[in-house]
């Protein structure tokens, strides 16, 4: 964003708005949605999975490869491994 000539205010502003949205989502989940069933929660979870998967294929992986070449595959593997290990602790 910086390289595109965006001001610091714009960059911080958009990411702050995003952070505020995410914080509000926790409140909504803890309040109005607290009594909802497991089946209901499974939908937003799967939605998040779909969005992540699409962003990986659409943006993240092509971008990493374009910038870094074939060796990014090793970084991806390391990320998977470390993340998985942390999740089993």
């Amino acid at each position, binding site marked *: *964003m910086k*390289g*595109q*000539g965006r001001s610091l205010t714009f*960059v911080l502003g958009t*990411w*702050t708005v995003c*952070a505020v*949205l*995410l*914080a509000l*989502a*926790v*409140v*909504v*989940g*803890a*309040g109005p*949605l*607290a*009594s*909802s069933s497991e*089946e209901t*929660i*499974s*939908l*937003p*979870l*799967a*939605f*998040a*999975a*779909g*969005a*992540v*998967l*699409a*962003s*990986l294929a*659409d*943006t*993240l992986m092509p*971008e*990493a*490869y*374009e*910038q*870094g070449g074939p*060796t*990014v595959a090793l*970084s*991806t593997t*390391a*990320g*998977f491994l*470390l*993340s998985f290990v*942390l*999740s*089993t602790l």
Partner: protein
Amino acid sequence: MLFLVGPGVPGARRGTGTSGVNGAAGEVVDVQESLVVGVVASSPLVVGALAGYRLSVPRRVLAALLAFAAGSLITALAFEFFEDSYEQGGIWRAAVGLSVGAVSFTVLSHLLDRAARAGAPDQPEDTGSDKLDTDAATTGRTAAQASVSGAAGLALLAAVTLDGVPENLALGVSLGSGTGDWPCSRPSSCPTSRRRWSVARP
């Protein structure tokens, strides 16, 4: 671009030890507590944006960080989001949710691309939502006017929002559920903090 990958988000920690969880089942966590959790879980986004704006990262390092984040996101989406969704709601709900999420991101990303193409000729610098030329971001030269091929700050912003809002809804639900357990059935995966990724200045 700076990635903060990993489990370093204390507020997002799930598991029975989560602070702010009321003991009695069904009791609702008050708004203040859930707000604190939400703010702590989301603030790395802003910190990452600031750091990414200030720091200048070599292109190779940037690529390695992106790829590393991609790897850890694969773990998150496969073993946490989708698996938990499947275990709680069955394959149909999980499949429908996954498809809708993927379509949503794809459409949004496509719209960003189109806005970039439309806006580039007239106002190269300051139109709403053109995707970024990341080469420019890393090398310091001026961004190409219609840099629509590469990935982009706003696409990643869209991804973080699309992923984060439903994820945090579920986090909030787990706070209010009375046990503090993230809705997951595999004990081994329960005490893990959420994998959170923050991207700034792509």
